[in-house]
């Protein structure tokens, strides 16, 4: 029982930054803007979360600042891709580079230390928020029954995970049940059609990209304010790309991406429990499990298992044609 709870919580903890970011990516790509800068946006979120917390002393304000920073950072991508019709992949590459450089540069200036920031207050876990106290060891022993311990452990996760899960379902509703979502999807599928119906393509795309930055910022803040309590150089460590993978394997749908992220998170969490899982009598090295998201993405893209098709106008800058 305890093992199961730990496994579920570890899986969720590893998956949360993935699905939050993936959902962000979905908003951007559904509106037609390629976003390989998720990694950088996450990093910016992680960094400004810590900075915000460092100056305000409140991790919650830090979270807010992280989300704003992520959104603003994404706005750069939006302006360059939408207003200046530039290559969205190039812009994404530059943003990732900028995030990686800028965070360490500012880290050095603000904290005067290389590589890691000072420790800041973290966002309390659910058990702390709900006031569930860890029972003393003796008490557990005496009672011989560890319900309270179980409860404590079961609530030992960040509230951001809950926010993230809510985000998934809200995103699903927004995308598929609201006017805004319909217009956003139409813009990514057929920008010209949207334009001929009086929908502003660039507004929709700005919204999509900035939402992706906000969510990636949230995921970044989760990493720094919930998991570690400090910023480390390049701490997103490729999670933005796994989120990209989850988005693609999830076929640009929030709920599917959520499931894909859970799977990827599970694969990562497995490391904590089993060093070398054995499948059918063959030892599988950890690294092969880590590889799984990437390989799965390739397979899904190639159409070996259920073809994943991107939004039709993805990556195509929308230029109002002089001659139609």
């Amino acid at each position, binding site marked *: 029982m305890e093992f199961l709870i730990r496994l579920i919580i570890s899986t969720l903890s590893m998956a949360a930054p993935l699905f939050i970011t993936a959902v962000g990516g979905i908003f951007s790509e559904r509106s037609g803007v390629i976003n390989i800068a998720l990694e950088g946006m996450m990093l910016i979120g992680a960094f400004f979360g810590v900075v915000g917390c460092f100056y305000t002393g409140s991790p919650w304000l830090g979270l807010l600042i992280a989300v704003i920073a992520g959104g603003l950072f994404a706005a750069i991508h939006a302006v360059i891709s939408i207003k200046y019709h530039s290559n969205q992949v190039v812009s994404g590459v530059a943003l990732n580079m900028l995030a990686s450089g800028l965070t360490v540069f500012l880290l050095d200036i603000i904290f005067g230390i290389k590589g890691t920031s000072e420790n800041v207050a973290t966002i309390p876990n659910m058990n702390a928020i709900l006031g569930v106290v860890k029972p003393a060891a003796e008490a557990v022993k005496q009672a011989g029954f560890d319900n309270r311990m179980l409860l404590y452990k079961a609530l030992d996760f960040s509230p951001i995970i809950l926010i993230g899960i809510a985000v998934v379902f809200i995103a699903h509703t927004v995308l598929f*049940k*609201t*006017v*805004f*979502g*319909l*217009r956003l*999807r*139409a813009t990514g*599928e*057929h920008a*010209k*059609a*949207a*334009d*001929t*119906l*009086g*929908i502003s393509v660039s507004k929709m795309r700005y919204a999509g990209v900035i939402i992706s930055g906000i969510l990636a910022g949230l995921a970044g803040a989760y990493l720094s304010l919930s998991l570690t309590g400090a910023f480390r150089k390049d701490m997103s460590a490729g999670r933005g790309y796994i989120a990209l993978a989850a988005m693609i394997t999830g076929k640009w749908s929030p709920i599917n991406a959520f499931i894909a992220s859970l799977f990827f998170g599970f694969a990562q969490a497995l490391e904590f429990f089993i060093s070398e899982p054995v499948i059918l009598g063959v030892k599988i090295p950890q690294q092969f499990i880590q590889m799984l998201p990437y390989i799965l993405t390739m397979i899904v893209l190639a159409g070996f298992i259920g073809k994943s098709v991107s*939004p*039709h106008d993805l990556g195509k800058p929308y230029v109002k044609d*002089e*001659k*139609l």
Partner: protein
Amino acid sequence: MNALSMKGITKRFKNVVANDDITFAVAKNTIHGLVGENGAGKSTLMNILYGLLEPDEGEIFVNEKIAGFKGPKDAIEAGIGMVHQHFMLAGPLTVTENIILGSEPEGGLFLNYKKAREMVAELSDRYGLIVDPDARIESIPVGLAQRVEILKTLYRGAKIIILDEPTAVLTPQEVRELLKIMDNLRKNGVTIIFISHKLKEIKRITDEITVIRHGKTIGTEPTSKVTENDIARMMVGRDVVFNVEKGKARILGQGLTLDGIVAKNDKGLTCLKHVSLEVKRGEIFGIAGVEGNGQSELLEVISGLRKPVSGNVMVCDRTNPDTGEKDITGMTPDEIYESGVAHVPEDRHKRGLQLNFNIEENLVTSLIHKKPFSSFGMICSDALANNAAEKIKEYDIRCGSSRVKAQNLSGGNQQKVVIARELSKQPRVIIIAQPTRGVDIGAIEFIHQKIIELRDSGVAVLLISAELSEIMNLSDRIGVIYEGEILETMDAADATEEKLGLLMAGIKKGVNANA
């Protein structure tokens, strides 16, 4: 009362005048045919009407009231709807979603899909446009997608609907359905502007027609007062008559033979229905026909870019043309060149040229791996330069230097580059499509001269052109293509404009015109 009138509309793009002082009016509750060849300026005019383009000059009146459209939104508000030639539909979205997009019912936060669905169903009932409101666009056939487009305009309360070549992508059954729908709409008080160059449809459904040629209005006539070949003549015009001096053809042996070619277009519809023809060496075989009747696909089949469903393409042997024909069906474009077939494509920007390459380079694309242009894979720039100098002189390509990028040349000179390159392959068979489209008059004459020379040197020439006069002047024999079939083949001497016009409209001799 006129539902709509446009007065003195002029629109210029860079150097091209797309619409030159166009004036036309559409009476309320009628179907008005707007006819003209590709590039005549119909689409530009309609995009102006729909607010997608702003005219340089001229005024638009809707219901006798002046209207200035800043964007499609204004046009929609004025009750104008447009069904574009290329559908403006998002594939993964459902029919209902596509229809309500941009003017969702009860503009609240949440989408009232149920209500939207009801509204769509109600509309589709009222006008007899039956579609499944929950189907995804990507899963329904073209004919239904078009209904969705029409519903889109009706949903927005359109009283004037522009249909931009709606039948180009439809099967004959679907066309029949569409015409029925249009009739129905007219009965329900909708005014329709119907753009097409399929004269049969125009004749059958419209109340009035306006013909546009080279950006100018040629005239507006009640449909009942004109015959199909009148329309055809108005469309093609007689003003571009060049009399090319040519002697009698010296017919040699077999050149190109097409045997029962059946092919599908990109939409998966059968667009060539058993096309068979023979082009002898030393003659020009002209294919006349209104565009979109399978010409493009025919070219692609011959040049290897499109695989036919059935049928064979055969060409004479390159070295010994008299030893019989070789089957080239299913070969790659490269192998087909090697078999002695050259090809001047219809769209030189899309296929014929690398616009970013200079003249020297464009003169050798697809020849570059051969001597003298390269040896052991290395390009001999001298050979390229010499070749260019030679061709520039021979073909009178007007350019600053042979290093000028193709995109900076005029249309005529670009075409000369393409022709020069294709002829330098020393083909036995050449397919020439739209050789003078967008080409200035001086170059037209030159290009025609070249085509005649080619014939006289014993090459089999297959000429495809939308310009009737070009076909009639150059060809030795003429075949008319209509809906993927060669309706009739005749000697050029027997061809008259009238005869061709009727055939182009799909009317065979002895068959009832309205069949």
